């Protein structure tokens, strides 16, 4: 299973829509102060869906 080295979330771009959080298949993300945040990087399987579906260029996943 692929893994992520890091997940960047740009708070200035994140509009807090929760798409990434709700659609993450492994529950690796969460909302904090109305913005997306990484909950558990180890869980991330680097499926890239959060990055692809974020409408706001606010989240980037760097694969290991």
């Amino acid at each position, binding site marked *: 299973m692929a893994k992520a080295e890091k997940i960047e979330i740009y708070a200035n771009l994140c509009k807090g829509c*929760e*798409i990434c959080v709700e*659609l993450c298949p492994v529950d690796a993300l969460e909302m904090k102060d109305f913005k997306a945040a990484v909950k558990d990087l180890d869980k991330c399987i680097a499926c890239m869906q959060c990055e692809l*579906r974020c*409408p706001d*260029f606010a989240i980037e996943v*760097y694969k290991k």
Partner: protein
Amino acid sequence: MAYDYSKYLRAGKIPHIWCPGCGYGIIMKSMIRAIDGLGWDKNEVVMTSGIGCASRLPGYIDANTLHTTHGRSLAFATGVKVANPKLKVIAMGGDGDMTAIGGNHFIHACRRNIDITCFVFNNYIYGMTGGQYSPTTPKGSRATTAPYGNSDNQFDIAQLAMGAGATFVARTTTYHAVPMEKLMKQALEHKGFSVVEIIAGCPTGYGRKNKLASPAGMIEWQKDHSVAIAQWEKMSDEEKAGKFPIGVLHEVNKPEYVEAYDANVGLS
């Protein structure tokens, strides 16, 4: 490495104006990756749009961009393409833009089979003006102008395009970000008039009125209600009820409008 969108985005224009969770940002990203994947020269890319939330997209793209009047995206695009067929012309707009006020331009662009790629962003609503029903709003759905539920019949945009003569017709959704990119690429490469209908969530104008408030919920809805065309063709009418096919729905080769005109009048 994360994908670098910045080479196709105009500097300083992001964040865009779309609401939190609006599907259009997902479409824009797929579109950028599709164009990038084809290696097109930005100087040759023309993007036209009408008026509406969808039509704001070209303003963000570093290309030759033309934000026109409501519904007229394809009419302007046709002028650009006929005047300079070397340009790669992409016309876009919302469901209202393309099938209500611009419906006439839409069917005639299909009929001509002019080499333009048309992306229709179908969010089932007039988003920009605050949620009035459009020609694609499902029967029974609520809209600000359908307080008792919508009583109108709906257009099926893809079928409309096929019936009118488009030579490449596809449908996708914002759930399918990667397949969307592939379909867009195919449409862009197709010689002739190509249409991609993209089902997108409008949490503000449609979702709120119809108890689909969560943007993620709207994307899940798209997954649950869409069926790949190969599977669709094997389904019974009962199984199809309430669902819609996605993928390449129609693809034929026919003479392209400007080439046919040029050959006919002795220009080529």
